[in-house]
């Protein structure tokens, strides 16, 4: 399978990339890791006329804590998340997620920015970013705007990133206090997309009262879903098994999974119910550790 013909450039600066994107409008596509885009081009689901390869642009690949944020450059590869000391020691949710994304070769190419910019509810980082309340920096020749992750996913393969823009950085508020986070997805085999996936970050105070909760769901809704009602059940309350059960039930009701080879709707809702419980418990365990 060979993609349809296209023209290609690999600019060395953001400014050049912006000017190419402006010139080609929505005929152009950004190429990052290429592991969602190239398969789609091979299947001719996508036939962009121009590819702007952003891999030669410096400054888009980093993982660092700065000014109260964990900053992840858009071009950071999944493998780099796996190997980062700061991620391993402080943000196990990313280690949970990246280990479940595809396989080692794909992770050597796939980028964190591309994973969310693809706008696919089957991808795993969107739910994680929802749980962590990430902010996304989107840049163009006009400057950089910051979009809260809640306003990032528009629809099927549609995000806040406009054709003349490039997602440059993802920022995650550094959690404080007793915080734990975790991600898990049910998959049929390595490299499979989720039957259902759940991301949780929770903060509790010394009395066991929940002062922060973020819950994101993978592949059980047309767009990546934040389980708002479930969060509301827990926020400001002393966390009990009863409340966790209620939160899980709400998540299973509020998502909107579609039937496919991975299961029917009822099965997926029930898996959301189970996973939300498990992952809240796991995040709590980590918060206490």
């Amino acid at each position, binding site marked *: *399978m*060979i*993609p*349809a*013909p*296209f*023209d*290609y450039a*690999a600019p060395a600066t953001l400014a050049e990339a912006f000017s190419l994107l402006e010139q080609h409008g929505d005929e152009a596509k950004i*190429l990052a890791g*290429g*592991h969602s885009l*190239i*398969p789609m*081009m*091979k299947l001719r689901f996508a036939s962009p006329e121009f*590819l702007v*390869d952003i*891999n030669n642009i410096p400054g888009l690949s980093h993982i660092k804590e700065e000014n109260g944020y964990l900053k992840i450059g858009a071009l950071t590869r999944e*493998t780099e998340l796996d190997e980062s000391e700061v991620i391993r020691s402080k943000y196990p949710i990313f280690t949970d997620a990246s280990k479940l994304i*595809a*396989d*080692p*070769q*794909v992770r*050597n*190419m796939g980028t964190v920015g591309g994973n969310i910019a693809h706008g696919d509810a089957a991808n795993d980082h969107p739910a994680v970013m929802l749980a962590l309340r990430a902010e996304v920096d989107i840049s163009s020749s006009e400057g950089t705007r910051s979009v809260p992750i809640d306003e990032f996913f528009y629809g099927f393969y549609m995000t806040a990133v406009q054709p003349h823009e490039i997602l440059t950085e993802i920022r995650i508020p550094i959690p404080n206090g007793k915080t734990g986070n975790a991600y898990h997805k049910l998959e049929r085999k*390595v*490299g499979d997309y989720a039957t259902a996936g759940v991301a949780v970050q929770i903060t509790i105070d010394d009395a066991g009262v929940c002062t922060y909760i973020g819950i994101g769901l993978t592949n059980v809704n047309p767009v990546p879903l934040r389980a708002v009602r479930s969060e509301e059940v827990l926020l400001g309350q002393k966390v009990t098994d009863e409340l966790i059960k209620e939160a899980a039930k709400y998540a299973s009701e509020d998502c909107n999974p579609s039937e496919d080879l991975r299961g029917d709707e009822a099965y997926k809702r029930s898996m959301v119910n189970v996973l939300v419980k498990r992952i809240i418990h796991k995040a709590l365990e980590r918060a206490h550790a």
Partner: protein
Amino acid sequence: MKKQITVTVNGEQHTVEVETRTLLVHTIREQLRLTGTHIGCDTSSCGACTVLLDGKSIKSCTVLSIQADGKEISTVEGLAKDGLHPLQEGFKENHGLHCGFCTPGMLMRAVELLEKNPNPTEEEIRWGISGNLCRCTGYNNIVKAIQYAGAKMRGEETPSTEPEFV
């Protein structure tokens, strides 16, 4: 749309003309005539097309040739230097291959695996080759082959080679 690219393959520099849409695996096989790199699924699932791009294992059916411009590529043909590479020896000694179709990809993936983690556990090996499918061996002897190569590369005694037939 044609472009010229320069790649260093197994230490040798080549300049070739490619279409922008040409996949790296086709350049390697059809233009450079290195047919050790295989095409199994053509959908980034099986790992038969695995090569190293600047030292990192990638699936060359899902990378454009132009993305490799200026980079170094290692394929299975470059593995043996003075005799077999320890991995090749490991596969040979442990019956790590049967039909051999998956083997070049397995070998190239294992090169990076052992480089990053010279003494992997069995689980780490299985995890490390999770992007490579083998339809023949049942994997057990591939795991052993990689353990054998790891030991040899660490300068340790190699484990006895009792192949497992399942």
